[in-house]
């Protein structure tokens, strides 16, 4: 099961002052799980998220209707890593149906646009769209 629900996450972020939202994003960034060895050795399997300013790659696994997410982003890109980690915490472990039902507008609802600028939020929407597309293709 995911570690957070979408609604809890929206509440957690919005309860904070702008500066503290950035700190929470940084915390997420530091907790992004490392890419397992089977993907480290196969960068060709990963899909690049072009909407992001920094290089980030993702891969979606669907096993028996369960969704698992894998990301690779460099430490010099903490914002992008933070976005990836948020998506990981709310989606990893969901069923296919639940993943496809995740609100597409969720990135706009966590109150980060004021802290990081709306421009930078596009990357997170791009990641979510690519995750859903891969899930549809693989299920």
């Amino acid at each position, binding site marked *: 099961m995911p570690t957070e629900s979408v609604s809890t996450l929206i509440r957690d972020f919005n309860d904070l002052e702008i500066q503290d939202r*950035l*700190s929470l*994003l*940084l915390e997420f*960034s530091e907790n992004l799980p490392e890419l397992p060895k089977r993907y480290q050795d196969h960068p060709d399997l990963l899909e*690049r998220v*072009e*909407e*992001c*300013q*920094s*290089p980030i790659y993702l891969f979606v696994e669907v096993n028996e209707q369960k969704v698992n997410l894998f990301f690779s982003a460099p*430490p*010099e*890109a*903490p*914002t*992008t890593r*933070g976005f990836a980690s948020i998506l990981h915490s709310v989606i990893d472990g969901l069923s296919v149906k639940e993943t496809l039902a995740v609100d597409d507008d969720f990135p706009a609802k966590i109150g980060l646009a004021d*802290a*990081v*600028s709306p*421009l*930078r939020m*596009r*990357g997170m929407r*791009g990641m979510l769209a690519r995750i859903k597309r891969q899930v549809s293709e693989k299920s």
Partner: protein
Amino acid sequence: MTLKLDSNPKFTEYANPDVLVSTQWLAENLNHDSIVIVESDEDVLLYEVGHIPGAVKIDWHTDLNDPVTRDYVSAEQFARLLSSKGISRDTTVIIYGDKSNWWASYALWVFKLFGHPDVRLLDGGRDKWIAEGREITKEKPSVSPSEYPVVTRDDSTLRAFRDDVLAHFGNPMIDVRSPEEYSGERLHMPAYPDEGAARGGHIPSAASVPWGKAVAEDGSFKSRAELEKVYLEGAGLKTGDNVIAYCRIGERSSHTWFALNYLLGFENVRNYDGSWTEWGSLVGVPIAKGSEPGIAPAPKR
């Protein structure tokens, strides 16, 4: 204690040697009481991950741009910002950042719109400092607010608006975006988000000189002789030319503006910060496609 200039021989070749400092110079002057170090990055969280000891953060988007109007902050907002960072009008400000100082150059350009007298870039920026194994910290400095005067922004000398571009035809322009953006194949940098423009291509007659041509492998600026090869021999600029540089939103072209203005000594260089996100969406303005500059239309004055 007065601050000594960096006597790095590479810098003394430049038209204005006093606008750059080396990592070595900064390491030796870190605690000097007349300087404030500012980090300005593309990634809004990078400063929090670790920064040069004593550095404060200024974000290009959340601090320097007005939240509502597409423009820079007002004189009052700028004064408040600098005061909150402990910067006075006579402070020597040293700016550095990621991506070979793109956003640092952009911040420096905005400081110059407000006429801040002494602003310098750390040559090679954040990456060079870290690559040399120099100290970084997560500790934020405690800042005592300073008195910063309210100074009106001068948009007439270093900044070009779309009407200035229309009136500029016949004079050289430099498009610093990637070749694919220049030709019109794509609307944004490879692998970067699309920031929205209705058409692809470039402003007719603009020469294509991607910003990275000004930078050596370690992210620092190339030597004066190498820069002359790029901009004089390569792009055909001549001493005394009146030049406008642009990119997509004005950040990469601030970097080129810095090189032309301070390192090569062009006295009339302006940054068109509306850049392609404005020009590529303007109704009725001329656009050229493909890899050739195209012919400049008659200037509209």
